[in-house]
Structures are given as C-alpha cells and as structure tokens.
C-alpha cells in the first residue's frame, strides 16, 4: 500500500532516508535521531499495535556498526499491514527504547543487549536474558568466535572454549554439486 509510505514521507520528510517496497513488504530506512519518534507515531497514529520483532545487525568493519530492525504489524479494523523500520546506529551511541510504546519490546531489547551489547535508553530492566548475569562478552557479535571465550566469575559461573575438533563444519552456498555443498571444516578467525 503506497499511501502508508506517502503518509510517513509527508510527515517525516527530512528523517526518511529510503523506502523500499518489495513483494508487498514495506521497509522504511530512517535517521537514528528521529527513529523513536517515528516508531511512536506508527503506533499512536497509524495503528501499528503489534510489534512482531526487534532485531539487530552487526555490520562489522563498516561504520556505523549497528543496525536495528523493527517489524511492525497492524491488526486493527480487519486490515493487515506490515511495516519494517530500520536505522543505523554508531557503536558509541545508545538506542532509544520503545518499551513504553510496546511493552513486549522490553524482552526484545534485553535480548539485543545480551547478544549484541547495544544498550537502550529508557529500558527499565537492563538484565541479561539468555546468558547469565556477569558474563563479560556479547556472543552474537561478528568478532566473537563460535567456540566461545573463557570467562570466570568465582563462585558463580565459568565458561570455556568448546572443542570444535576441526570445525565449524559449514555448508557452501554453491550449486556446483552435492560434493561441494557438503559441510566441511573451514578456517575461521
């Protein structure tokens, strides 16, 4: 639906960097400074009452490093609208929490903090969610090895490198032959 993008483009013309429409999926790439305001507007005025997911991307080696992706859905009035909002975030900045707008966002933001180490301003509960409290690393970052890193919290917990035995064994995205597609040990740094 083009009108949705038009409404957003009219309202936030200076903050919208790009819009993509692909097979009925609408993606809006916005400025980081205005992202919170746009997301709130989508909820309050455009009726996107359901936050499907918040995820983050690590563009390791590229500035700005982080990218946050919000998947919104409108369930009201029998209409079904999907909207994806993305924005880039430099490594030294904190993202703005939308847990006040959608309470479910608190869980997603905790997971992003736990896995990527992106912090959120306005997030009341900044505990880890999958790793234990006190774990020193953020395991979904691109510069974190799959086998993990040793860590030690006396009397609480420890972690060690997992033996990969020549792995990780990964498939190649090639269609040459099944022999080439088979999972094989590859060098990782």
């Amino acid at each position, binding site marked *: 639906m083009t009108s949705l993008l038009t409404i957003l483009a009219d309202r936030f013309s200076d903050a919208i960097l790009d819009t993509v429409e692909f097979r009925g999926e609408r993606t809006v790439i916005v400025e980081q400074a205005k992202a919170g305001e746009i997301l709130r507007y989508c909820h309050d005025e455009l009726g996107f009452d359901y936050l499907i997911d918040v995820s983050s991307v690590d563009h390791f080696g590229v500035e700005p490093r982080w990218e946050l992706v919000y998947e919104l859905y409108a369930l009201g009035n029998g209409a079904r609208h999907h909207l994806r909002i993305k924005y880039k975030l430099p490594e030294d900045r904190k993202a703005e929490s939308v847990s006040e707008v959608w309470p479910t966002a608190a869980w997603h933001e905790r997971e992003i903090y736990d896995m990527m180490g992106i912090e959120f301003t306005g997030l009341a509960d900044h505990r880890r969610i*999958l*790793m*234990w409290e006190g*774990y020193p*690393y953020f*395991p979904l970052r691109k510069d*974190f*090895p*799959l*086998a*993990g*890193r040793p860590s030690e919290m006396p009397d*609480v*917990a420890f*972690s*060690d490198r*997992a*033996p*990969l*035995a020549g*792995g*990780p064994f990964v498939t190649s995205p090639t269609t040459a032959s099944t022999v080439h597609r088979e999972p094989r040990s590859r060098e990782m740094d």
Partner: protein
Amino acid sequence: MPETIEQHAAYDSKIEGNIIFTRADAAINWMRKNSLWPMPMGLACCAIELMGTAASRFDIARFGAEVMRFSPRQSDVMIVAGTVTYKMALAVKRVWDQMPEPKWCIAMGACASSGGMYRSYAVLQGIDNLIPVDVYISGCPPRPEAVIEGLMRLQEKITKEESAVAHFQTEKAV
C-alpha cells in the same frame, strides 16, 4: 570389601522361617540400590526418553526407581537428561547441592556427557565439569533400554560401595 546380600545371606527356611542374616552394610547397600529415587533433570529431548522409561512399556518401577521426585531433598540420583547450557548449569548445580547424601548422578545422553553436538559458547561441555558423574549413558537420545542399563550399572556400583560403618571406622582410626 563387604559382600553383597545375595552372597552373604545364610537362609534356611526350615530353621529360620522369614529371617535373613546378613551384614548391616550389605543390607543398607541393597536397600539403597533398590529404591533409587531419581531427580529428573530434564533439559532437552532426552527428557522425553526419560518419560518413556518411566512409563508402562519400559517401567522403571521394576528397578525401584519409579518415584520421580521433583524435590531435591527427597531424591537419590540425579538424571541429567539433556543439553546443559551455562545458564542452566547454575540451577543444576544448585539442585545437586540441595540433594542429601548419599547421592549419585547419571549423565544421560551425549549432551549431558560431553556437550554433544553443541560445540558452542552457550553450552557446558559435559556436566562432569560441575558435578561428579557415576554413570554415562551414550545415545542421542538414548533409548529407554539404555537408560535402564545405566540404572542397573549404578545399582551394581552401589552394591560394591564401601559401607557407612566401614567409613566411620576408618575415620575414627585416623
């Protein structure tokens, strides 16, 4: 090494009726091995096989281990069934510490024994990093027959265990 009750019992039905003579040590071990109450530490798919072991077709009750206790205070053997993540490991250790002595541990399946296929930052590479394991059961997940075999191996081990009396006697001597 104390004899097992089977070896030691001198039983003559004509003379003694329903009385069996044995050593207290052997009797204690015999009682312990036949009433192993498991603490079902079900963490992944192995827990489903553990349920199958407990259910009627395989019937772990035949070995006196049907009383799955969800309170660590009442259980004797912890069956770690499934993938132990580092986060869950804290809870597993805590439950283990709450179990009263004597206690035993069975690592059921590849994950609990060695981390299994999860060579990852999030998974503890074997529960024996945290708590002492008496019996390891291979399989991914092990079939109920294998779990029962593991339980029988543990029973064998308990039969041969040094008795409490002998333990306290050596303590006194020291």
